[in-house]
């Protein structure tokens, strides 16, 4: 198939970016979106143009490295799919495809379509852990965890930290990410001891990173390749309120 690609190019974080238009022929329907970009890059090399930079690594939908807003949708038009698992048969011959970076103040562009998502790491560093010294853990079966709680924690833990939630949000809010990370640990008995401290610290780190506010649109969950539910945002709202109230009255 033949495609027109309108692709964002930007030299560095401080530079102005703009779109560049390229045409690509003989794209296989069986190739993934990223393989199509590989093909374009080989073509650009031949034309003496610097290849387009984009983030990618595992190419099997789990590492969360790939990004790209494709025709206005983070990870493209398919539901529950990362860009690396999006295949070209979902497009038609002659289509024009607009490819942009994940846009948010908290995700500055590194180059072209590559953005810096280290703000997510900082949120985790603030409290996205259970304090357990290596070697000090009790037996794995010492603490039974109700299966339902464990399953809910697992649903949250499925978050791959790709940032599609932020990119899809009109306000670039990181609530779905933060709530999934906090929710995973808060739901488990192991995480209860630090629950209050965790939510306060993680929300404060999230706010400090320059993300916007949640307006309960639900776009994040719709864009999420792992279908993380809005329930975790509700849970974070609840846990945070409780923690604040406890702090005031303690």
């Amino acid at each position, binding site marked *: 198939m033949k495609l027109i690609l309108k692709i964002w190019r930007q030299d560095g974080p401080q530079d102005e970016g703009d779109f560049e238009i390229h045409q690509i022929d003989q794209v296989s329907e069986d190739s993934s979106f990223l393989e199509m970009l590989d093909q374009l890059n080989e073509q650009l090399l031949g034309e003496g143009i610097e290849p387009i930079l984009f983030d990618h690594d595992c190419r099997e939908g789990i590492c969360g490295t790939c990004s790209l807003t494709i025709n206005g949708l983070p990870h493209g038009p398919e539901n529950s799919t990362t860009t690396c698992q999006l295949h070209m048969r979902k497009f038609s011959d002659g289509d024009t495809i607009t490819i942009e970076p994940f846009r948010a*103040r908290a995700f500055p562009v590194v180059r072209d379509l590559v953005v810096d998502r280290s703000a997510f790491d900082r949120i985790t560093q603030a409290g996205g852990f259970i304090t357990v010294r290596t070697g000090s853990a009790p037996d794995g079966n010492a603490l039974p965890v109700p299966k339902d709680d464990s399953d809910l924690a697992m649903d949250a833990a499925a978050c791959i930290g790709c940032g599609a939630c932020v990119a899809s949000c009109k306000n670039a809010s990181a609530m779905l990410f933060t709530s999934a990370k906090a929710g995973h640990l808060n739901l488990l008995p192991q995480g209860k001891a630090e629950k209050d401290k965790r939510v306060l610290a993680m929300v404060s780190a999230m*706010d400090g990173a320059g993300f916007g506010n949640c307006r309960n649109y639900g776009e994040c969950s719709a864009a999420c390749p792992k279908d993380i539910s809005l329930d975790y945002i509700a849970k974070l709202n609840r846990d945070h309120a409780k923690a604040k109230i406890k702090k005031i009255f303690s």
Partner: protein
Amino acid sequence: MFTSSLGKKYIMALTGIVLIGFVFVHMAGNLQILLGQEAINAYAHALQSLPMPILWGSRVFLIVCVILHAWTAVVLIRENRAARPHANEIEVTKRAGLASLKMGFSGITLLLFIVFHLLHFTIRTIYPEYDDLMTTVGSPNEGEIHDVYSMVLAGFNHLWISIFYVVAMFSLSGHLAHGFSSVFQSLGIRSESWGKKLDLAGKAYAWSICLGFSIVPVLVTIEKFGFITFFETSTYSFPVALN
């Protein structure tokens, strides 16, 4: 408590609850106009005669809620704009409804409406002559009381005002449609298992409120053009009110 991003959401939700409740009470009160002049006038008079601390306490409380709600919204919107400085070339929406996307617009419309509404019917600076509408109908004793019935009919006798009211009520319904279920989400008491029902309840509530408020200006307007006769226009205290 209220400085973080979530804190601001709590302010929006808590003041939102107050205002969601208020519009219902207000609408229920208004609808008494359909029962006739006596009912609405008596009701209005009873409200006006509440003890000072309760009457003014509620008024101040409501105004504080509106101001907090609007001010926090402004802060949130500014932060949100700053958080997404560069718009997408193609902006697509997958799930969010129009109402949720246009909360700012409906909110501003409502704020303008509230100011107008207070000046129109409560403080009465737009038509100061409404102050002179007095009657004994609905009075608990033989004394004259303010004729709210006539004021309302007179107020909606201006077509542009009726239209503005109805438009504002559509804004309100949009605002409520998202706001109602959003309150639950922001306070952390919504879940997707019953969230769909909650959203429906929110929409039903929003449309009921819209209908309840709009019915009076609509009826007055229809009557004005002579299609029906519902209100007892003969009881207008002053012909001046019809101007």
